[in-house]
């Protein structure tokens, strides 16, 4: 009798575990009526092109790493804590906010402020469920690893992988507009973080990293462009992105040539790039980028 109970228990456990890790077709719902629009006529980018653009966005983890190298202390002031996931009504708002909070999660994780990340994790779960991709965000595992503070790399993997799988699923299921919003949200929040820190802790490396965003801004606009005329909120967002791009227009990135130098070390290969890039940006241009980035990000928080 006890044996039978154990078998039943095992079956239930295996079903729970397999369900938690599976991707269902549940996420293929249409827009909520509030923002119901047709994307059928939009000129869509290929899934590969979107995937490439998504990988080109500077990871908030990389920005947070740079801040740590600069010995910039953690500050909760940079986080989008005013966001209430429960009040995000439309899929537009939910996807964009999911991106913004994803960047904040990367910042918290890198600074190992994992105890403080639970509220953000809860919001992310709510938003992911709101656009029917909750199955890809393993809240319980991420929460447990966060609280244990034992393995930062696993935590980074679990968090980033959840977002990657959400992104892939949205693209594969003709919901590329939500994927685009999520990616844009990540970038806007990462840009806000970098520019706000620059205001308080001026640093050459960070200044250059801000200037170098010019490299990917066109891609970001390309990502949004198929949807810019389809929905008022998207139109506003595209206008905001163009406004930032305009601030970057006169910034110059120049390159010097050089051959890479390779050395074998500990069984691996170490390659030092001697080719370099240099950012020419005036204090005035930087100030305008900082101001515009702040205004746009804060406006999104208010309107969302």
């Amino acid at each position, binding site marked *: 009798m006890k044996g039978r109970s154990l078998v039943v228990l095992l079956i239930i456990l295996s079903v*729970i575990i397999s369900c938690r890790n599976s991707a269902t077709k549940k996420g293929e719902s249409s827009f909520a009526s509030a923002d119901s629009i047709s994307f059928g006529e939009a000129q869509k980018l290929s899934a590969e092109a979107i995937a490439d653009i998504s990988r*080109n966005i500077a990871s908030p983890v990389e920005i947070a790493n740079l801040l740590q190298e600069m010995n910039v202390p953690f500050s909760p002031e940079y986080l989008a804590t005013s966001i209430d996931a429960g009040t995000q009504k439309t899929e537009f708002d939910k996807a964009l906010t999911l991106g913004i909070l994803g960047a904040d999660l990367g910042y918290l994780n890198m600074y190992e402020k994992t105890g403080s990340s639970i509220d953000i994790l809860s919001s992310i779960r709510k938003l992911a469920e709101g656009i029917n991709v909750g199955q890809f965000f393993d809240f319980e595992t991420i929460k447990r690893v966060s609280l244990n503070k034992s393995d930062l790399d696993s935590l980074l993997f*679990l968090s980033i992988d959840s977002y990657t799988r959400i992104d892939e699923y949205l693209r594969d299921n003709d919901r590329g507009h939500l994927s685009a919003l999520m990616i844009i949200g990540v970038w806007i929040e990462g840009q806000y973080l970098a520019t706000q820190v620059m205001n308080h802790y001026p640093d050459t490396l960070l200044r250059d990293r801000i200037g170098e965003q010019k490299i990917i801004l066109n891609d970001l606009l390309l990502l949004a462009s198929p949807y810019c005329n389809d929905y008022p909120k998207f139109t506003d967002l595209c206008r905001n992105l163009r406004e930032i791009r305009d601030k970057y227009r006169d910034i110059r990135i120049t390159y010097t040539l050089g051959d890479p130098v390779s050395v074998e070390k500990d069984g*691996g*290969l170490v*390659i030092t790039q001697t080719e370099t*890039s240099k950012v020419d940006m005036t204090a005035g241009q930087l100030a305008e980028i900082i101001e515009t980035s702040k205004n746009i990000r804060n406006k999104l928080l208010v309107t969302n």
Partner: protein
Amino acid sequence: MKKILFSLFLFFIAAGLSGQPTDPLVSSCLKTSGPNARYLKDFRIQLGKAASGADMRFKANISLWRNTKYRFTLCNTEDSKGKLILTIKDEADNVVLTSYDQKTGKIYPYVDFICNKSGIYQLNFDFENGQKGSGVGVVSMIR
């Protein structure tokens, strides 16, 4: 019987609680990246045997940023016919790194790249001699 069932029970509990990536290849590859590596992205590659071995078949773009040290760790399943190889090209199509030394035939399991030019780079993956295989390329930052 009870012992077996109890062991299975513990296995399921452990699988649910571990917090490790569910893909064992990614999990083991992450471990080989080293304690100073911070995970950024991974590329899971599964390829059949190439019809011709001229060009590397799996391509993806990635942005790499100046003053950052990246580690590209390459892992493949045991049943792969060849080792996973990575070549990175810049926007001008110049090779900036490769994990395969053509002179010696050596394939490196990881390559550290000290990036001094921010930009968009193309990652090119394939298995040795265009063989069939499954693998993962993990991109990390080194602190």
